[in-house]
């Protein structure tokens, strides 16, 4: 792999890694599993598609990541694990990050954290497909066609899933949204 291509791929992966981790975390409800999924997606993209044009990397990467997330859900179902809603609402031992006690956190940081927890909780209650479509369309900025290919459904379904996700989030968040 040429050095220039390696640098370009490095820049691409660095540009998506944080959002990819959060998307995987919201979908899987666990940061360790999310990190594993992102690592696998990076590895597959790098080994299989590094020579593709850089403009194709983003939808390809999220296609791979979404497949990995779906596989993890299937494995969990197969191993008869009790379904766990994502993150804080059920995984009490898991801590998103080392954080200062509430008493010493600035007010703005506390409010941001509270908003994140409310949003994560609301997203966790959505059906997986709606959650994936919402995150890819609204947060990652993929267009309808790219989102459809990334999650494996039709363009019409993307619009339906997004509309339902927005309605559900509006309903869940409007009462206590800042």
């Amino acid at each position, binding site marked *: 792999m040429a050095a220039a291509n390696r640098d370009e791929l*490095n820049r691409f992966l660095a540009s998506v890694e*944080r959002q990819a981790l959060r998307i995987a975390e919201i979908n899987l409800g666990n940061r360790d599993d999310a990190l594993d999924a992102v690592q696998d997606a990076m590895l597959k993209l790098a080994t299989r598609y590094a020579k593709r044009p850089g403009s194709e990397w983003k939808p390809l990467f999220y296609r791979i990541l979404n497949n990995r997330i779906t596989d993890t859900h299937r494995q969990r179902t197969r191993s008869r694990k009790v379904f766990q809603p994502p993150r804080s609402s059920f995984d009490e031992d898991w801590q998103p990050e080392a954080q200062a006690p509430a008493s010493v956190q600035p007010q703005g940081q506390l409010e941001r954290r509270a908003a994140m927890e409310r949003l994560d909780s609301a997203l966790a209650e959505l059906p997986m497909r709606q959650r994936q479509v919402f995150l890819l369309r609204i947060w990652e900025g993929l267009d309808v066609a790219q989102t459809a290919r990334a999650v494996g459904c039709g363009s019409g379904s993307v619009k339906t899933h997004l509309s339902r996700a927005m309605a559900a989030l509006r309903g869940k968040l409007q009462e206590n949204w800042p």
Partner: protein
Amino acid sequence: MNDDRLVGDLRQVLDDSAAELDELTLAGLKAARLRALDATHARPGYGRWPWLAGALASVIAVALVLTEPEAGRDAEPATMAAVAEPALPVDDLELMSELDFVIWLAETETTL
């Protein structure tokens, strides 16, 4: 709350959550990224030895012809893909499942 404001708010919250990841997680992401880049560099790939890939394909084709049961000769001839697919490792099957996506992307690129 209208949709535009809701979308703006939700994007901001998600952006904040990504920006505030802890150092340990960021180190894990960086390690994963470097591992992926190294794997790309280290991967031998079939392109380095095209003659080997060709030779292997020929040997497999000959072996399939020689080992095919006599009774099966009259039957519908199987394509190489149909014969070889079950023997592919799981990773290659996943790759096959993504091929339509790659083709679609390439077609999209050319029509833009």
